[in-house]
């Protein structure tokens, strides 16, 4: 789960990381009011999860109340990567000379958390030069480790001491809150040499959320996504007209590829997950039937831990209620029994995924 900047900064403060004074605003009027409580110039920042916010025009620096209103209106209406902000963050601008980069992140290949630090920040991590990367011991880092990173960066003494303190806090935050990523980019170096985090990016391990109820209410929940997650399946809206449902992330991904290659546009990715039983299959199919823009449904099942007969029974039950045309490829464990369950229903049945995909894309 990726936190919004304003949420991540609340977490930063909890861990003793000083960030510029800021106020969140849910409306244009709220933005104007917040501006009055801050010392200008103030940055108005769109709270979206999509990357490239600055380049897309999602941040404005304003010095007078009149431009706050117009800029807040503009940014509320600005879609970045298909996402419009529900919240703006108004933050006192911090005059600075240079920008650094600091993060604690999972290195999948090394199977370890690592610190990534660089003297020059403000750009994507991939394009950083002079990166210092250090593996983090599983129980966390100590002062000596943090000081070593600052030393590797060849920071002047006063900055080195601040840098080590910030890294210790960031690492503790990442570890205690079970984050896959806790990133400060940029970490600004002020005119007087003070280091201040200007942006905050935090991604919490979804699988560890059961140990962190404090995150449960952070996201404004999309109704369908919330329902999907309560049902235990993975669901991503994709904007097209063919709902793609299957069991297993890889299988559904490859089905999206087949649909895309055949000229179709998927409306969603829905992975029933391992071991979906009839009630979950029904819930999934009812959900995609309600998804705006869906014209046809493609179900691609390869039975393993999921029993094909459970899926077939679910399809049968939902088709009996009505709903969008459904194209199904059911294979694997109990395949023949599953097919028998679907005979006489409105489901169009196929033996292979390409056949089912071709049919659903053409709408035959």
């Amino acid at each position, binding site marked *: 789960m*990726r936190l919004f900047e304003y949420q991540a900064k609340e977490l930063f403060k909890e861990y003793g990381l000083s960030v510029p004074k800021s106020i969140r605003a849910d409306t244009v009027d709220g933005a104007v009011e917040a501006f009055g409580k801050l010392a200008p110039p103030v940055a108005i920042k769109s709270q979206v*999860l*999509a*990357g490239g916010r600055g380049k897309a025009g999602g941040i404005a620096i304003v010095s007078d109340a009149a431009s706050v209103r117009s800029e807040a209106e503009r940014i509320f209406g600005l879609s970045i*990567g298909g996402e419009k902000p529900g919240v703006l963050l108004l933050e006192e601008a911090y005059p600075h000379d240079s920008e650094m980069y600091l993060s604690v992140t*999972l290195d*999948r*290949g090394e*199977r*370890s*958390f690592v610190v990534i630090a660089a003297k020059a920040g403000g750009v*994507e991590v*991939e394009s950083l030069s002079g990166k210092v990367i250090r593996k983090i011991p*599983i129980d966390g880092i100590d002062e000596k480790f943090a000081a070593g990173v600052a030393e590797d960066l060849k920071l002047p003494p006063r900055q080195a001491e601040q840098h080590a303190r910030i890294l210790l806090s960031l690492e503790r935050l990442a*570890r205690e809150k*079970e984050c*896959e990523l806790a990133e400060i980019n940029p970490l600004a170096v002020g005119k007087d040499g003070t280091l201040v985090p200007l942006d905050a990016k935090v991604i919490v*391990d*979804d*699988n*560890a959320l*059961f*140990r962190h109820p404090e995150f449960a209410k952070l996201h404004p929940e999309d109704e369908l996504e919330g329902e999907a997650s309560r049902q235990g399946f*993975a669901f*991503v809206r*994709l904007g097209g007209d063919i709902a793609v449902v*299957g*069991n*297993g*992330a*890889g*299988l*559904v*991904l*490859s089905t*999206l*590829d*087949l*649909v*895309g*290659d055949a000229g179709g546009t*998927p409306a969603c*990715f829905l*992975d029933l*997950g*391992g*071991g979906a039983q009839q009630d979950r299959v029904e819930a999934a199919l009812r959900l995609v039937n309600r998804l705006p823009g869906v014209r046809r449904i493609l179900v691609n099942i*390869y*039975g*393993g*831990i999921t029993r094909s007969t459970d899926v077939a029974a679910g399809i049968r039950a939902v088709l009996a209620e009505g709903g969008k045309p459904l194209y199904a490829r059911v*294979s*694997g*464990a109990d395949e023949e029994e599953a097919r028998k369950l679907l005979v006489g229903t409105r489901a169009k049945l196929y033996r*292979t*995924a*390409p056949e089912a995909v071709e049919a659903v894309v053409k709408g035959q």
Partner: protein
Amino acid sequence: MIIPGRGEPVMVQGMTGTYGRLHTKLMLQYGTKVAAGVTPGKGGQAVEGVPVYDTVAEAMEKTGARASVCFVPAEYTYSAGKEALDAGVTLLVLITEHVPVRDELRLVQLAQTRGATIIGPNCPGIIVPSQKVKMGIMPAPSFSPGKVALFSRSGTLTYEIAGQLTAAGYGQSVAVGVGGDPINGSTPIEWMDFLQNDPGTDVVVAVGEIGGDAEERLARHIKKSGYGKPIVSYVAGRHAPKEKKMGHAGAIIYGDFGTADSKIRAFTDAGVKVARTPMEVPSLVRQSL
């Protein structure tokens, strides 16, 4: 790397749960010698005639099983896995999805110090058709004995591709799901190295998906090591959006990191044939032989 052999005793952790029961039955039907189950507090019961013990240590002492398939829920996978490794289990197959990443890291580290092999988590397990043994949840009819090794980050894609291979007459020496999470107990590179020396394997099929750089690392490893056997690959997710977790915890593109195109390029650059769809895999295997 340890793989299961014919007739070796296997225990099932979490045997008394719904899926533990179902797959105990299916593993027994396939030929796996499931000798013990472990569920704390359920010692003395039996599932499919297999005795259940309270602890891994007891199950090991009574049956000699040193391999375990674990169906324990994600919240308890770390403690179950640790119990198994501490007791001396040498092959631990973790089927469970949604295990926290830090729990996985601790288990990986523990397995390394103990010299044990972990497969998974979030995987279908491992099957060796010629030995009539499977430790996992894969549907048996998709698999047949042969000379093609298959490993994948996705369970259902493993079945799909094994099924395609079987239908085309290419059986499998071994098929393993490395897991769909960011952290794998045993990595694609480790499997690749193992399969290089496996006399039963003539061709390796490597199935990847978006997210992370395991495929890029594997491709670099293949190029550097001058891999001695033909390799066919497939990568799922060419049409996947960015910044969205696509079902698996590990299947997410951040910026330009983890795209299918990058992985396909890396494989192509390493001289590995890349199938565009799962259905193309058998014909590329045919060309490789």
